[in-house]
Every structure is written in C-alpha cells, then in structure tokens.
C-alpha cells in the first residue's frame, strides 16, 4: 500500500468564531454560544472564554460563575451550516475524498493530490480564511488518527505534520489519552498499570492487551499506540448512481450481439446493488453505449426494478443513435435523492 497523506481540518471555535465575526463589538470579549435560558448548556465558546475555564457542554450558570461578563449568543444553526457548505466546497477543489465529521471538522485524503500535503493544508486554510474570515487548524499525517491528533498541536490557526519517519518518536511520548477511542475510563485503567504514554503501552504484548481490553479492542490498541491506523477516509456523500460496464475485446457490430451481453451486465449490476451498505431505492435505469468513434450515448427511463425487457428497449433506442459499432456497453441505476426533511410536512406526534 502506498503511503497515504491525510489532512484533518478543524475550524477554531467554529460557532463562537462566526458569532464574533458577525458582531465585532464582542470579538475581544469572552463569548459563549448556547442555551440562553438559565438551564441551558454552552454549545461552545471562544478562546477568551476558555481562559476563564468555560468549556463546551458546560451548564450556562456554571460558565457565568467562572466568567460573569460572558457574552451569550443564541445558536444560529442555519448560519453555521451555510459556512460549513462554503468550506466543504473548498475541500472538494483539492480532493473528492472528504469525510466530514461534523460541521467544523473533516478528514481529507490528498494522497492523489499533486503537491506537498503541507502546502495543500496551508492553501486550504488560506482559502477558508479568504472566503469566510474564519481560521482553521490542520493536522497532516499518514493516517486519520495521527492527523486528528496533529491538528490539535498548533491550535488555533496553525498546522502540524507527523511525517512517516517521525511516527515512532512522536508516539513514544504521546499520552495514551490522545489515542482515538481511549476515553477517561481506559486512560484511568492504564494509569493504574503505570501506563501514561503510548511508548509504555507499546511494551505490552497482544496477549496482555487481550486480557485487559478484550480481543478486538486489544488488537486495535496494539496498532494505535504504534501510530498505525488503516481506517480509510470515507466519503459519506451518498452516491447518485451505480453502474457496471464492459469494454469489449472486439467491437459489437449488431444489436443482437449487444442484446446477448445484457444478462451478464444486469447480473453484475444486481450483485453490486446487493453489496451496497444499505438498501436504497433507485428511480431510474439507464443503458450507456460507447461507439467505435468514442462517442458516448446514454438512454434512461424511470423504473424501480431491474427489468430485462426494459433494458432491451433502452438498448435498442441507444443503438439506433449511431451507425458505428459498439466498443463499450454499460447498465446502471440512478438513486432517488434521499428525502430532505420537508419543513412544510407536518409530522405525527407519537410522544405522550
């Protein structure tokens, strides 16, 4: 496997930064975002507020105790979402492999993007600032876990890279608490055994880890404390279509020859559909032909099942479009857009 290059982008106090940007009068004051009622909690707060000890998820009354002059802003989710959309658009200029974790952070796999990952990260942060007037921090590493740890290293408005050859030294002193999936509970258990750093944990054998954490988590920990993490950057954007195609060794001259290929292609498409992680309804099917002159044509129609007779018809119509022989044939389906929550649609209230 080639060495991957992963960037983790983390917006600095995203919600609070937007509030300060939109209301410059409070920019130099401690600002919290969240429940305005006395019983609410802070969704997040800016760095000035953090200096007073305010934290996200902290009850508002507690935050006010720590910082009596805290400026509290109501949550404006629509605004944050709009900014997040702009930022994601920037990511996609660099790679299609974007895995948003939330509105304010995402993993990018830039293995295939030309240029140094360090420069790419810098360019992304520059463009985010130019577009939104918001700062971001970045972590650059060969895998997701290290990239996420690294983005925290020079926060705010900074970036940090863990190079492949530096991993061993970096892990040696890294507190185990920083590992993905190691919460306060695991950390406390490890501390009882005198393990504070990943370097110390590396001394543990598989057997010992299994005994302490079970087989599965033990194996994962064994890899994580060595800075290994194979999880791919998963693009969650749902695919819009699924198709399978075949380029023939020899061009197909007749419609009958094309027809004979349909069952195999449909069989493959059907198998691919079944392999999808979740069942999704499609609403259109299509046949694609590439002719000897490299012109491509697609004929589609609404359908919700893989009906061979229907594909035959589409094939005939597509075939008629060119006098040339066929060098490639494909069949596919288009998925219905996942229904967006419709604000006008009233819902049942099953509660009570």
């Amino acid at each position, binding site marked *: 496997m080639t060495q991957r290059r992963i960037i983790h982008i983390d917006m600095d106090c995203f919600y609070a930064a937007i509030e300060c940007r939109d209301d410059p009068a409070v920019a130099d004051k401690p600002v919290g975002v969240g429940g305005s009622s006395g019983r609410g909690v802070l969704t997040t707060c800016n760095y000035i507020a953090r200096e007073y000890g305010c934290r996200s998820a902290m009850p508002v009354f507690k935050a006010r105790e720590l910082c009596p002059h805290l400026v509290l802003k109501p949550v404006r989710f629509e605004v944050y979402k709009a900014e997040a959309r702009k930022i994601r658009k920037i990511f996609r200029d660099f790679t299609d492999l974007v895995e948003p974790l939330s509105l304010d952070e995402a993993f990018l796999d830039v293995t295939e993007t030309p240029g140094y990952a360090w420069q790419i990260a810098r360019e992304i942060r520059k463009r985010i600032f130019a577009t939104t007037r918001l700062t971001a921090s970045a972590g650059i590493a060969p895998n997701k876990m290290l990239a996420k740890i690294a983005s925290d290293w020079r926060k705010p408005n900074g970036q940090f890279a863990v190079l492949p050859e530096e991993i061993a030294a970096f892990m040696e002193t890294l507190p185990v608490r920083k590992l993905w999936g190691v919460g306060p509970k695991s950390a406390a258990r490890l501390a009882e055994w005198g393990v504070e750093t990943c370097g110390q944990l590396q001394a543990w054998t598989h057997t010992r880890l299994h005994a302490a954490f079970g087989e599965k988590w033990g194996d994962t920990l064994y890899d994580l404390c060595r800075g290994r993490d194979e999880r791919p950057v998963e693009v969650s954007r749902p695919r819009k279509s699924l198709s399978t195609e075949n380029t023939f060794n020899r061009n197909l001259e007749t419609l009958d020859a094309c027809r004979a290929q349909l069952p195999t292609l449909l069989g493959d498409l059907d198998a691919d559909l079944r392999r999808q992680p979740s069942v999704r309804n499609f609403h259109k099917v299509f046949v694609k032909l590439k002719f000897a002159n490299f012109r491509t044509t697609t004929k589609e129609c609404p359908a919700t099942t893989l009906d061979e007779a229907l594909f035959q018809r589409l094939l005939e119509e597509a075939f008629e479009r060119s006098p040339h022989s066929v060098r490639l044939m494909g069949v596919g389906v288009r998925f219905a857009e996942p229904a967006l929550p419709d604000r006008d649609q*009233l819902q*049942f209230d099953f509660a009570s």
Partner: protein
Amino acid sequence: MKFKINRDHFSSGLQQVLNVVGSRATMPILSNVLIEAKDGFISLTTTNLDLGIRCRVVAEIQESGALTLPVRKLFSIVKDLPSLEVELESHTNHQAKITSGTSIFRIMGIGADEFPPLPDFADEHSFVLPQGDLLRMLKSVSYAQSTDETRFIMNGVYFNFEEGKLTLAATDGRRLAVTSREMEVSPDNLGSLILPAKTVGEVERLLGQGDQVRIAFNERQVAFEISVGGEGKEGGLSESIYLVSKIVEGNYPNYRQVIPKETDLHVKLNRESFANCVRRAALVTSEKSNSIKVRVHDNLMEVTGSSSEVGEANVSLAIDYSGPDVTVAFNPGFLIDPLKALSRDEIIFEFKDELSPGVIRTQDSFLCVVMPLRLN
C-alpha cells in the same frame, strides 16, 4: 450427492430463495444456496443471518447428500440449460457437475457443514390464515413503512394479534396505514411483532402460491410457513415454503393516538376518480414543490397543483358536500399510495382544517391517516 431434476422445477425453486443473500464479504457462504437431497426432494435454503428461506422441490434422488453453491450463478445457469432433464452430482472439493443435454458445467461450491443453519425456535404464538387475506392486508399498509434508518422501529410492518382480530399498521411519521381483520385469538395467544421491511417484501412476494399461511413468533423471531398448491405444485414445489426472520426489537409507536376521532367533515368518493384527480394535479408539481391542494366546497372537490418550473393544474370532481369551505395541502404520493393499494371502489375521505390530517377510510376496517403540508 446425486439427483435428477426437471430444469423448470429447479429454477422455480431457486427463484423462491434467490433474493436472500448476505452482503458480508467476510462470509461468502451467505451468497450460496444450501442444497440437501433426500427422500425424493431437494431442499433449497438461503440466509443472510437476519432472514432465511427454505423450499423443497421434487427430484429423483440417486444419492443423498448436501452441498452449497453460489445461488445467483446457479440460477442463471439452470435457467439457461438446453434440456428439461438436469442432473447434478457433487464431487470432491465441493464441486458440482451439472449435466443437461450436451452441456456440462462444473461449479465450485462450499461444504454444506459451513452453512449457518436456519434457527429453530420455540414459537410462543402461532396463527393460521388465508394467504390471500394476509397478502391484501400487507399490501394495503406496507407502502407507509419508513425507509429512514434512523427511525428503525418504523422500518417494518406492525402485526398485532389482539382480542378477536389481527391488525397491521405501518407509518413513517407522516402517514399511517392501518388495516384489520376479524380473527379468533385466544387470550394466551395475544401478541405483537414488527416485521422488518426486507422480510415484508419477501413475504409479499411468496404469498399467493397456496391456501394457508402459518405465522409463528416469539420475542426475537418470526416464521412463515407458506403452503404451496396449484401453480406452485405444478412448478415442482412441495408442501410449503418456510421463511424465518429476525423481528425489529422495540416498542412500536402508539399509533392509535394519532388517528383523529372526530369525523364531522367527510365525503364519499370513488376511489379511482379521486386517485385520478390527485395524479393529474400532481403532474405539474416538481421535486422542489411536491404538494397538491385539496379544496372541498359546494358539492365540488378541486385538486390543484402548481410549481414555478412547470405551471398549474386544476382538476375538479363533483361530490356530495355542503359543509364549510376547507383547503388542505398534501404530498400527492401520500394520497395515491393507499388509493392504489386498495381494491374497494368506494372510500370515505375525512378532513377538518388545513393543519389537521386527512383520513382515507373504507368499509372494511382500513384507514390511512395523512399529515398535511403547511399552506404557504
């Protein structure tokens, strides 16, 4: 294992079990069908661990035994064999040799001992009813199931065997379809289950091949024993098709509370005429503005649709109505789905005001509650 079988019987048997294959790359055996040959039959079993199906097909068994083969590939081969006479013989290394006319196939399989057995379970509740009735009931509600995976409790059809009747319900939070049928249910046999959407689809597909279906369930699983007669028997299928499935675990939402009680405003409508009105008005709607308005006043129902991209439609229908002028907006699909699934000609459409649900009812204890869209 060695047997002779009629090609069409074999393929019709495979067709019954074909849809249930696993998607886990780690368990290739789940893409296979278990073939067991014994006593004048072969039995065919597939499972994805959540749902399993088994059927039996008549065959001339020369040597009993068992093997698993990739079901989709096997089906496409069997369907395409040149002669009606087919012979299947297992060899060492889990290979199968299929001979028909002048064609010979050797297919790689996996040993039968690796195939996960269909679960045996103690059925706490058991009922028998006509397949036609269950099929009609399922089809009249199944379109209303939720496909939103985050609302998994609604990703299925709710079966409730209550005193004197069986009730089926499905909802996605915006519409609710309920149907029931009188049935003897002894007090110790009362119970309910949520049948997962995938299983609903398979049961709908398999029902109608014979007279009776037996449903048995406990807290975790449900089994359907679908008897085979007439056409199915001619196709070589024997006795019954057996389907066993996990059920959706959890409490189904209390759907009864969202069924409106007052019924002061209603009109009798011809089902097809109403469906046509809605369908025509919906022709001009778009994905962005997928709504139609239903207005009733002075013996007239007007169904209107409009979108900035296409234009407008106004379709009217003479009705018997002298109540107040009421307009309610709906997603047209939510009205058409139940109207399409029903078979009675006459339906009753109830409404109240623009923020209250519309209800489609029939004489035979069916109802569909549809939440409206906010009027702009």
